[in-house]
């Protein structure tokens, strides 16, 4: 269904502006899904993924402008470089848990902002970096359409990877880390290696999205590439949709992406769009801490079935049914 939607959207879009908004929403969807590799599985909340995307964008741009590498080769290479960089970054950041990790992830954004601003001989500093177009002769609407499909492909790749991990033992190990890291380790899960691996995977997807954005957008400016706000929007999207669900972040990206656009139109000339975004975030946290998808399915289930018994008065039939469900889960 998602694939179909991605395929038909460009032909339905009434004008290039809507199409370009579609590209932006897909960009968010990829970012949120990529974030969910870390946030959803291990429960480490990173507000720094905006920086990884920025890094991917800059790496792509610099490879093209400084090393004359063809655009899409540069994109892949940039993702590899960012993945490699994610190893030391993750090594430092993943040593701490909970609150400290959040701080470290914020620090990552701020430190990269400083570096990319100050190191102007390489990055162009605050003057920004102009990334040449990958399809030089293409008209703008065509250009949007091409990138829409590129982003669509990337999103599907990311989703497939997430799905694969979710049902695997590796994924189970990551979820165990989310629940109780020491316990997981004492059961033989190499927690640090697991966390690092999934962080690197997440960083690679994030960098791909960032690199694609650089190719599409063409102008990079450290202030916008390395912004805590970007990372926070990603988290908002993932949480809103539901971090334990494959399509949660995508749904969140669509909702929040459109909401941001709407708030901007509605409250455009005042900073009240910040207020509305804040309120939205607050409401989600207070009333749907597990996200839209789980909240809704939970409600449906509660309406359909009577309350679950926690006491030892399980009938044999209940037990058999439970067991069957688990087994079906096994074969699916």
């Amino acid at each position, binding site marked *: 269904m998602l694939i179909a939607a991605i395929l038909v959207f460009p032909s339905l879009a009434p004008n290039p502006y809507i199409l370009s908004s579609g590209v932006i929403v897909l960009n968010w969807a990829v970012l949120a899904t990529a974030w969910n590799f870390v946030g959803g599985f291990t429960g480490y909340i990173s507000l720094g993924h905006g920086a990884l995307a920025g890094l991917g964008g800059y790496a792509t741009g610099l490879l093209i402008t400084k090393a004359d590498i063809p655009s899409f080769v540069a994109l892949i290479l940039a993702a590899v470089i960012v993945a490699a960089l994610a190893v030391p970054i993750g090594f430092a950041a993943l040593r701490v848990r909970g609150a400290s990790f959040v701080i470290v992830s914020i620090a990552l954004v701020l430190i990269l902002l400083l570096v990319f601003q100050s190191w102007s001989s390489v990055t162009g500093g605050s003057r920004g970096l102009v990334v040449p177009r990958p399809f030089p002769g293409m008209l703008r609407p065509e250009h949007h359409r091409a990138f829409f499909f590129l982003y669509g492909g990337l999103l599907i790749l990311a989703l497939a990877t997430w799905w694969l991990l979710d049902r695997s033992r590796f994924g189970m190990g990551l979820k165990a880390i989310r629940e109780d890291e020491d316990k997981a380790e004492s059961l033989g899960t190499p927690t640090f290696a697991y966390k690092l691996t999934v962080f690197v995977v997440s960083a690679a997807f994030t960098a791909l999205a960032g690199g694609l954005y650089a190719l599409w957008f063409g102008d990079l400016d450290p202030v916008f590439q390395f912004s805590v706000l970007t990372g926070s929007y990603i988290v908002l999207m993932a949480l809103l949709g539901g971090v334990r669900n494959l399509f949660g972040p995508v749904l969140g990206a669509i909702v929040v992406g459109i909401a941001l656009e709407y708030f901007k139109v509605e409250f455009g000339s005042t900073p009240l769009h910040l207020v509305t975004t804040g309120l939205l975030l607050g409401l989600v946290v207070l009333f749907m801490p597990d996200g839209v998808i789980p909240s809704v399915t939970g409600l449906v289930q509660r309406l359909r079935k009577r*309350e679950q018994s926690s006491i*030892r*008065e399980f009938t044999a039939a209940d037990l058999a049914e439970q067991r069957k469900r688990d087994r079906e889960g096994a074969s699916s």
Partner: protein
Amino acid sequence: MSEIELVDVQAGYGRAAPVLRGFSVSVPAGSVVCLVGPNGAGKSTVLKVASGLLSPRSGRVMVGGKDLTGAGPQKMLAEGVALVLQGHSVFREMTVEENVLLGGYTLNDKAAKSRRAKFVQELFPVVGERWRSLAGLLSGGQQKQVEFARSLMVDPKVVLLDEPSMGLDPKATSTIFEQVARMRDAGTAVLLVEQNARRALQTADLGCVLDLGRVHISGPAADLLADPQLGELYLGGRPAEKPPVP
């Protein structure tokens, strides 16, 4: 008259089905009632209801003849009901001293406080020895002793104990049971939950077997101990080989 009485209590967590389904118990002043039962029967839930941590869905909680259904723990404590939680509930990042003195949070009399503190230090040597170290750094059993010591800082009319001997070495276990007996002799009503059931029933006056949220059997502790079938089902197969140290 009963110091504390639970009447036909229904209680549970969140939206789930009730854990206690019409549970009643009453503990007279100067006696020890021992609650035993399989894991998950609802024993801890009974104590949470009795101490005000959990509001019952229906039924009544009476303390000293007053209806205190739905009162919070602060009010319950003011009425003389104290609970020692199951598992570990020391304030981990505070010193043993701070933990113990916090036990007397409601006391205003400084002198009385330090007198009690001295008393518990003598009772549990480790409390005195580790007075200034962080409570979270103590061993499991040592923490348990600190917790018990903390509860001894006040002089309640009703004491609710949730497996106080868990994780304690034989010496400390004896100290605890001696203390329970002493409280009873001083006129306190004690509601005791224990998995060390045989030992506990020897100290208790009344026994009460809880299963599936209801009272299964209750009666004088000695009768329960003697019942072979009950022993098989709830107290473990082997009767105690020799009577414990008094």
